[in-house]
């Protein structure tokens, strides 16, 4: 027996009622009991404001507010309920330049349609077991966009040679 997913609170944002039904079917089969829904980005933000959510699965193409704008609002709006919310972008857009666009808006994981239960479960597992640090830089706030983090074994060369403080949760480095 693995994680108790009944405690997870999910938000599914997609303008297709059928797609929301499909995703909810998979989530319920995985044991998730709390699945809230919204039909576009603006409705999704309202759902976020109305109660705690652990993870959001968001479509890209929606109107009036699309998924990309939803992600930007969650990450950077002053009244965002949770700028660190894990967000899985689920979309039929699979072109490289679009994936980069979603990454640069601050999505946590990317999931191509048509979805499979396995692919959705893999993204959720990544979020639970390998949470990424967040980066605030000029023009970007969101999960660290570098996938691989390799420990550097050489001397510390940043910040005038001072060793990095491994106990702090926030580090400031020069770009």
């Amino acid at each position, binding site marked *: 027996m*693995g994680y108790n997913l009944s405690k997870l609170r999910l938000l599914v944002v997609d303008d297709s009622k059928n797609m929301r039904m499909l995703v909810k079917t998979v989530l319920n089969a995985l044991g998730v009991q709390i699945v809230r829904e919204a039909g576009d980005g603006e409705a999704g933000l309202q759902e976020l404001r109305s109660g705690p959510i652990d993870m959001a699965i968001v479509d890209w193409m929606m109107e009036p507010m699309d998924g990309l704008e939803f992600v930007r609002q969650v990450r950077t709006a002053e009244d965002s309920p949770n700028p660190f919310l894990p967000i899985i972008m689920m979309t039929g857009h699979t072109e490289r330049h679009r994936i980069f666009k979603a990454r640069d808006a601050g999505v946590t994981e990317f999931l191509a349609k048509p979805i499979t239960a396995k692919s959705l479960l893999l993204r959720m597992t990544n979020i639970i077991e390998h949470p990424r640090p967040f980066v605030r830089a000029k023009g970007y706030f969101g999960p660290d966009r570098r996938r691989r983090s390799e420990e550097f074994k050489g001397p510390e060369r940043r910040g005038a040679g001072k060793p990095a403080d491994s106990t702090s949760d926030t580090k400031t480095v020069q770009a």
Partner: protein
Amino acid sequence: MADEDKVQIINPPNTLRSRLDDGKATKGMDPALAAIAEKALEDAKPQVKLHVQGEVGRLQALMAKVLASQGKDQAAMKEMFAVSFELKGQGTSAGFNLITRFGDSLCRYIESQKDPGAKEIAIMKAHVDSIAAIMSRGIQGDNNPIGLAIAAELEKVVGRPT
């Protein structure tokens, strides 16, 4: 160091994992879950098929509008893109893998055509007719030789996705 050059790395507290591991479970995701969830998706296929059938009907109606307007009805063209995009995303979930493939080819083609002429509209119609044929003949999966042959011909014109 100027403020705009600073990069802040933040490790937000991660309570998710500890909340989901209630001490009764072994660590990690239950390996049986994927199979359980795939079965649930399989059971949902009839419902998805109904939805996809409806979308194919919509696509045909929009194609008729585009034909009648000789490609000038921008609203119909935009909606046709949206419906083919939806079919791309859901065809496979209904068991119609070739509808996903043709839907993908059609929406990429529509997106590439700013001012379609008669030839371009005929190519769009060939896509729509193929999608309708797959649905009406119940061609499931992605191994049907006729479906694959049609896909190959259409993709010679439109190109395969990279």
